[in-house]
């Protein structure tokens, strides 16, 4: 082993310097003796040893597998595709005879049955696939300030220098400002879904669908606001035109609940929260658990889904679905995550075993090996 020469010089100038003219007065260039400058900061130096790595693998394995099972077990989901691609599909006719400008609505009803009762609150979603709500041009095409109730964006329809809803391209008419403007709003999902339970005796019972409480609180109360000044939305939105694809103006979106109109219509808000992926689902309504009732929210049996078929998706090979789902404490049923956890946990455990055996076989050899020069 080689001696290092530094021991002698470890701390400066005791022996040599004092004899050398005036050393005591001028040795100021000597660097400071701080742990940082001398790179001697106290530190923890972990290394990957069998003692730390192997237990970690086993622990991860043991934690992940049960989590995975929990994720798989809870939650129920039912999925019904009502696009009407096949001739046999009840909505086939509606899907064929479609155009945006149809004044007559086409309805179709889809029969389905539940093998299991859905307990507690049931959530009803509409799902679209191959629908690029995340396309850059689409995502950009909205005006958040308009949706936040900025009146100026309603009044000035001509693009001025500082206040120009470039965001709303290309849905920006030249005479009247559109409210709400932009491609996202323009393509608002407008199918109506209704659900009926068919009693064993054959009668249809409409299931109450609650359309409130389906949007984020922050969206409903902060991000989206109707233009203020007047409670009468008809007056507020005067001088604006509806989006070209819409059948009703924005202040008539919910004919039943006047508080659910304008920009704060919850269906609208849900739609405006664009999806990240081309296949997505959006909350349509909630089927609330009946209070003081021991019967399940949706008992086992036959159901009919009544669809007012307005929304065209066939042109781009899109699919429309209705999804019913119950929720566990950690969210909706998530089979992927569950399986992933089980898989990763098992792989971890097995890897731990493999590494352990390798360690027993070769570990001794290398650790005792001397460092060759």
């Amino acid at each position, binding site marked *: 082993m080689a001696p290092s020469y530094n021991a002698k010089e470890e701390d400066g100038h005791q022996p040599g310097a004092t004899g050398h003219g005036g050393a005591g007065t001028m040795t100021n260039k*000597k660097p400071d003796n701080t742990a940082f400058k001398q790179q001697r900061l106290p530190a923890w130096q972990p290394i990957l040893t069998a003692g730390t790595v192997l237990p970690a693998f086993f622990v991860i394995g043991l934690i992940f597998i049960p989590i995975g099972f929990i994720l798989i077990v809870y939650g129920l989901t039912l999925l019904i595709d009502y696009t009407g691609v096949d001739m046999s599909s009840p909505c086939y006719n509606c899907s064929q005879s479609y155009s945006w400008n149809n004044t007559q609505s086409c309805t179709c009803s889809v029969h389905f049955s539940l093998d299991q009762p859905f307990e507690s609150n049931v959530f009803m979603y509409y799902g679209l696939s191959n629908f690029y709500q995340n396309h850059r041009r689409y995502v950009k095409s909205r005006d*958040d300030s308009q949706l936040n109730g900025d009146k100026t964006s309603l009044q000035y329809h001509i693009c001025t220098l500082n206040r120009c809803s470039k965001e709303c391209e290309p849905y920006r008419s030249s005479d009247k400002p559109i409210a709400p403007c932009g491609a996202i709003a323009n393509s608002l999902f407008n199918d109506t879904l209704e659900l009926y339970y068919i009693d064993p005796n054959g009668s249809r019972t409409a299931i109450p669908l609650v359309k409130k409480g389906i949007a984020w609180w922050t*969206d409903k109360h902060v991000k989206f606001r109707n233009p203020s000044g007047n409670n009468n939305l008809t007056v507020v939105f005067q001088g604006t035109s509806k989006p070209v694809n819409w059948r009703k103006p924005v202040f008539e979106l919910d004919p039943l609940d006047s508080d659910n109109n304008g920009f704060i219509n919850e269906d609208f808000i849900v739609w405006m929260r664009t999806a990240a992926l081309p296949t997505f689902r959006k909350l349509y309504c909630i089927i609330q658990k009946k209070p003081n009732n021991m019967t399940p929210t949706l008992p086992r049996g036959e159901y009919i889904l009544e669809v007012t078929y307005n929304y065209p998706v066939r042109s781009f090979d899109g699919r429309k679905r209705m999804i019913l789902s119950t929720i566990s404490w950690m969210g909706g049923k998530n089979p992927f995550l569950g399986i992933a956890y089980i898989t990763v946990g098992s792989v971890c455990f097995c890897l731990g075993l493999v590494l352990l055996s390798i360690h027993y076989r070769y570990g001794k050899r290398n650790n005792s090996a001397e460092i060759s020069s």
Partner: protein
Amino acid sequence: MGSLLSQLGLECGGKDVREKERHLRANDRELNLSYKYADNAIKTSKYNIFTFLPLNLFEQFQRLANAYFLFLLCLQSIPEVSSLPWYTTVVPLVLVLSMTMAKDSSDDMNRHRCDKQVNNRKVEILIGGELQSEKWMDVQVGDIIKLENNQFVTADLLLLSSSEPLNLVYIETAELDGETNLKVKQALTVTGKLEDSIEKLANFNGEVRCEPPNNRLDKFTGTLTLNGETYSLDNERILLRGCTLRNTQWCFGLVVFGGPDTKLMQNCGRTTFKRTSIDRLMNVLVLNIFGFLMIMCLILAIGNGIWEYQEGSKFAAFLPKGVNAPFSAFLTFWSYVIILNTVVPISLYISVEIIRLGNSFYINWDRKMYYPKSDTPAEARTTTLNEELGQIKYIFSDKTGTLTQNIMTFNKCSINGKSYGELLDFSGQRVEINEKTEKVDFSWNNLADPKFCFHDNSLVEEVREGNPEVQAFFRLLALCHTVMPEEKKEGELYYQAQSPDEGALVTAARNFGFVFRSRTPERITVVEMGELVTYELLAVLDFNNVRKRMSVIVRSPEGKLTLYCKGADTIIFERLNPSCSNLTEVTTEHLNEFAGEGLRTLALAYKDIDPEYMEDWKLRHHEANTAMDEREEKLDALYEEIEKGLQLLGSTAVEDKLQDGVPQTIEQLSKADIKIWVLTGDKQETAENIGYSCNMLRDEMNEVFIVSANTAEEVRKELQTARRKMTPDGTEEPTVKKSRSGLFCLLKTETVADEPVNGEYAMVINGHSLAFALEKDMEMELLRTACMCQTVICCRVTPLQKAQVVELVKKYKQAVTLAVGDGANDVSMIKAAHIGVGISGQEGMQAVLSSDYSFAQFRYLQRLLLVHGRWSYLRMCKFLRYFFYKNFTFTFVHFWYGFFCGFSAQTVYDEWFITLYNLVYTALPVLSLSLLDQDVNDWWSFQYPQLYTPGQLNQYFSKRAFVYTVLHSGYSSLVLFFIPWAAMYDTVRDDGKEIVDYQSFALLAQTCLLIAVSIQLGLDTHYWTAVNQFFLWGSLSVYFAVIFTMYSNGMFLTLISSFPFIGTARNSLNQPNVWLTMLLTSILCVLPVVAYRFLRILLWPTINDKVRYKVRQDKVLPPAPRRVQARRTSTRRSGYAFSHAQGYGDLVTSGKFLRRTPKSRPALFSQTDSPLAQTQPQSYRTISEWEEPPLSP
């Protein structure tokens, strides 16, 4: 950021019209001004207040990275293309530009200050018949100026007259060439007559015609026409700017070149900008990354075209059709160029600079590289080369002043068959001499030199008892030399010796009571044991290379004539009187002993001379001396005749003191597999001797090849013989691997493979042979042979050859080279090598000024390389690997997302996250990693120098490592995109609302990414200090703080369009699903890495792993075993202790130098204090090439 120095030269000497000849007339400003020669003002600054901004910006945008970001900015201003808001590019770019700008402006301010200071120096100019004090910048060509002692020479002057006899002036040229010894310049006799008469000078109207400005320091041609007569001018008459006037009261000079035309300024600015191999690799990689980026963008653009064609056209009801598919693809291409630009982020360059700067500061701060005796800390003069220090394969070292201290100490002697200097204890055993050993007390001699130490008391006793041989021995040492004494105060003697050996011998004599006090051309005054004795000096038979001896002939006060001679033992022994054969034998034994200890020996002899013979000889000597032809030969014959039949007195042994720790350092470095070549101007014997004493040459080596042939063929033969001896079955043709590298593969490189050798060999080659060997057709032979040897020593090499050797290795070995030296003759080598290290020693500052690193002691080199270099390399590599990993992962996620968003260049992350990712969230943790990390501490680095070898082999960061990094980040990005994708697309929140909206997904993806890269950083960190922890956790906390702030109601309501992510953090991060996904992605990112690393440590541990394991095992450091260096028992005869240069004999006897009364004699060679300390020098880097070796005047 380092290109500033290279820019420095642009300002000096740029002229549109090259003048062919310079013509000027003294005291005729009108005529001289008509030529429009440059005046004496200099300007090294680059900017002024008005030009700073445009010029600096222009320069900065010349840099590829900045220009690229400007281009991105332009792209972003096109709405159809812009996929990211402007601030994602502007914020980093402005930050980088302003940081560089601040640095440039402070640099330039310094230059301004420096220029101003130099330009405002005062000098006396002769204007209108009287001397006026003017600023330097107002000096014009053709002015006559007066310089006084210790002043800097204002401009390049033609020397007119001086205060000294024979119109001599003495100048110090340390600023120009680094040599601190004084040089003599002499004025023409005709101008010398002007003396200091202002009237005569004012009427002087000589006309000078001379060469145009150039950068040759050693050459000047011109003529002076005065009163119709023409005198030729050469370099002897010219004082160059940058020199300092010494020992001359005043002198007058005519300004020939001013300011930018001076040779000093013409020489500046040829500094080449050094880049590290990592830099070069990075350039290549960055270019490849650009190519890669383009491919990714192209794929996505094509994807977009197809999508627009197939889907987009049908989707038109929802997403209005923009443009046709090909044009959309074209726009998308540029959009993706913007989005994916993070593969080469601008912060990479800035971080690299910061890391290098930090590691340079560590070098400056290192107390273990601080030399208290001269109060010099180590200094990293270049801040851009640090990691290269961890990759050195070849070290080229100077000898004198670098390996050795250039201090000679009189250590031992043998007088009349008795050896002195050895210390024996009572039982007769030899005692090891160290610092604590008691020194001989010289207090009886009030003229003794207090710094002299000797340990053997018996010699003093003999001298004081009056032993005639011992006295004669020291008398000889006090008389036979060419040393110049200087007595500033009564009793305070300083010797100025031409070679340090001589100084040591005369000092020894002085301490033993034979004090050489003063000399005139005819006399030498010596204080012999307190008595003043004056000898008449009859002749000095000077030293030269052939004679290898010198003699003096003196007449003692009693009238006795004696010849004293000292010289190489073999030479002296040939000329001894046969009567001393017994003594010769004993002395030879002692000489062998001395030589075995690595001491430099001299034999001393004397001879009494018959006065009559002397008369005759002197006559003939005079004749020979004045002979017109064959003077040398005649003199030699005369010397030969008189130096015969000598009586042997004894021998001296002088130690050429090695610097502290040199053998240990060399041993350590060679353990680190670094090859050390010594390139010295010294003689072969001296060099070999030093080679032995610092353990580079060892007796147990199989063979030491000496190459010293006189013709090219012989050299080739010797080299081949040596090579065949080392590898008898080796191939005749070298294995040359040709490859292309560099940007665009334009650089052709040839690499000569290392050849295996059995056993240890060394090679010593002298300068003459080297000149042949460096020829084009033989350089390969030299390289192969030399590289097989453990040690290579080149002696008698010129500075140019030093550089050539370095270039040779650089060219064919593709290895990183380091040159270390301390003198002006090392400058070329220091500049040629990848890294130049200057030892701030005694030989002036020239080497330090052109070096990249400087410190005071050779031994600090091991710390610089094995600790700082290794760490810097490790850190830089870790940084690069991690940085590329983190950014590639970041970017690849976008790539994958492209397939899910119709290739529309939609970003995965929030735009603010993109802006802040590199600048805020990951900046500090990675900086702390790359500034603080160390695998093992310095102590262990010294214990296992083998830890250094991975750097030499480029193991930590290479193209291979880069590919591994890319694959790794490819995997991570797959995990980071597809796990959230799969986990989210089919699920909902715990309140039934959808979770897979764009904003929540963006938040999830970016949080997963940040956590994964943070964990990866943790895995890469070997040295967890509090700072690392703080920055890592701090950055994560800052991230969460920032997202909660940015996604808050307040921010949204203030700036609706900039913060649309309102509420996302609150609504997303309370979901168990989200956290479970993050956990899964992190585990999946980390797991394979941990398993792989664990397996690698288990199955194929590297040296680092082993040492780290050992460190963990041995918590307590065992005491370092100090090995006592074994005494060599070699019988090799050591070299001759004379400088190889011709002595000062001529000067001593000519009287040129000895011109005043001894009382007021100024220092001839005033080295007592550093002249630099007295006045601030002009600080320019000068001289890039040497035409002539300055060693042999």
